[in-house]
């Protein structure tokens, strides 16, 4: 059975490699975002001498790595579900012996693997040329960073799946995944770490899953969160994963019921 999932992932890897124009455009876009963000920070820091915030190269590393993670964390499941419901093809996926969500996860994991070569590696090299290689603060932080990333991806993927499944009910509203993405972009700390925001925003954000997707692993990487606190942060990430998993399970069952009642 695992072979079936592996095949899907492999196909996805091959297709993405074939479209090199798209790859160039994707890397190019991410590069522009990176340059704009880093230059913005550099400019901000030149004007400010009295700052008590973190040193410039730490925030630059944070930003560069945020872009790298952004191109690595592929959650196309929300677009896939939306598209297939719109085109009516979702029924076909129900007939397969493997779970529908499992297939989409395999899809995304396959894209992630190819994006390491297609996007992450070139972006890392480009970042090293333009600025400096975004290295972790210590080996320990890197060791903690990796599992935190895995947890982050789980949160992001579960969120995307849940939002994607809402299309079973509100397809007419359009792709709500885009709305979710714009909210996540701000609240996840992927563009600006949340500690720059007013305290009211920070308090609210603590009770939302978003800051645990980008900010947590990134903070571990640059050493803003020390190893002990990192374990605590990963615990919170795991809690969110559990919550979202249950939510996904419920929504998925509802979606299946709805499809059965309507006769596919």
């Amino acid at each position, binding site marked *: 059975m695992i072979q079936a999932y592996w095949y899907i992932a492999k196909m996805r890897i091959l297709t993405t490699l074939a479209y090199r124009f798209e790859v160039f455009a994707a890397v190019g876009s991410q590069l522009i975002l990176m340059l704009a963000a880093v230059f913005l920070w550099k400019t901000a*820091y030149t004007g*400010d001498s009295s700052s008590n915030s973190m040193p410039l190269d730490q925030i630059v590393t944070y930003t560069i790595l945020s872009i790298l993670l952004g191109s690595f964390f592929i959650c196309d499941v929300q677009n896939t579900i939306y598209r297939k419901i719109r085109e009516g093809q979702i029924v076909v996926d129900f007939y397969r012996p493997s779970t529908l969500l499992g297939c989409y996860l395999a899809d995304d994991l396959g894209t992630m693997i190819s994006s390491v070569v297609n996007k992450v590696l070139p972006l890392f090299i480009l970042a090293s040329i333009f600025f400096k290689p975004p290295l972790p603060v210590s080996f320990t932080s890197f060791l903690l960073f990796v599992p935190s990333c895995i947890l982050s991806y789980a949160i992001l993927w579960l969120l995307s799946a849940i939002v994607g499944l809402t299309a079973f009910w509100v397809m007419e509203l*359009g792709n709500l995944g885009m*709305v979710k993405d*714009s909210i996540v972009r*701000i609240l996840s700390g992927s563009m600006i770490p949340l500690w720059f925001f007013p305290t009211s925003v920070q308090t609210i954000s603590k009770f939302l899953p978003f800051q645990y997707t980008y900010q947590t692993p990134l903070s571990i990487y640059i050493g803003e969160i020390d190893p002990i606190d990192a374990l605590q942060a990963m615990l919170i990430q795991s809690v969110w994963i559990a919550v979202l998993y249950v939510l996904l399970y419920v929504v998925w069952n509802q979606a299946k019921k709805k499809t059965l009642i309507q006769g596919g």
Partner: protein
Amino acid sequence: MISTLQHYWSVAACFARLAVQRQLEYPLFLVSWLLMIPISYFSGAWMLKVIIDRFHTLNGWDFPQIAFIYGLGLLSHGVMVVFFINTWHIDNMVIEGHFDRLLLRPMNVFFQLIASYVNFIGLIDLIPGAIIFLYASHLVGMEWSFVNIIKLFFMMIGGVLIRAAMFICLGSVSFWTKRSASLVGFTLTLLERTTMYPLNIYPRMLQLIFTFLIPIGFISYYPASELLGKESGFHIPLSMALWTPVVGIVCFIISQFIFSIGMKKYESSGS
């Protein structure tokens, strides 16, 4: 001559009416778009505010001025999205062979391309942009004098033409290479990051490129610098209100040239 113009105008009006009807058919569909775009733009402005609150200035640009250039950039983007959005679909039309249909009609192909898709949904881009710009111009204390309004008008036209020219050139690439849709997204990101922040945050080299090679700086940075009375990187004589539309028209003519070369190739390859 007059009758040709009248004819073109009536065709354009007809196209516009059809476009509105088409777009109003499934209004609910726009809800996600209607949510996403304002969230993106307002949050972008908010994030700039957060940075400036902490760091006070960006190379001498304070928040009202940053918001001003941000809004100005969004305005020309919004107008372009309303009128020229079909330039984003050129590659799809090449692949699907839609150009044959346009070629068969006794009217200028490019005109048909643009006039057939007046994108009223683009108002979703334009309205937040206008709000941000008006708010910023209030903060900055810009005088809405007659001269300023005329200047603004010409800067807008120039900005829109430069943007449209870029997309036309990129779309025309598909006449040779067939697939170029992904370049649209790339160009959008590029335009976003260079027109919504002051150009002087970028190193000198990039400023040079965006002034003389690909004149993106003329879309919002130089006009904004002038309206705000700030020093921009290069000393350019005369008013931006003159230069921007001139640059815009030049770019547009170049893009038309490239487009027509592409069309000839399309016709001759008999796809």
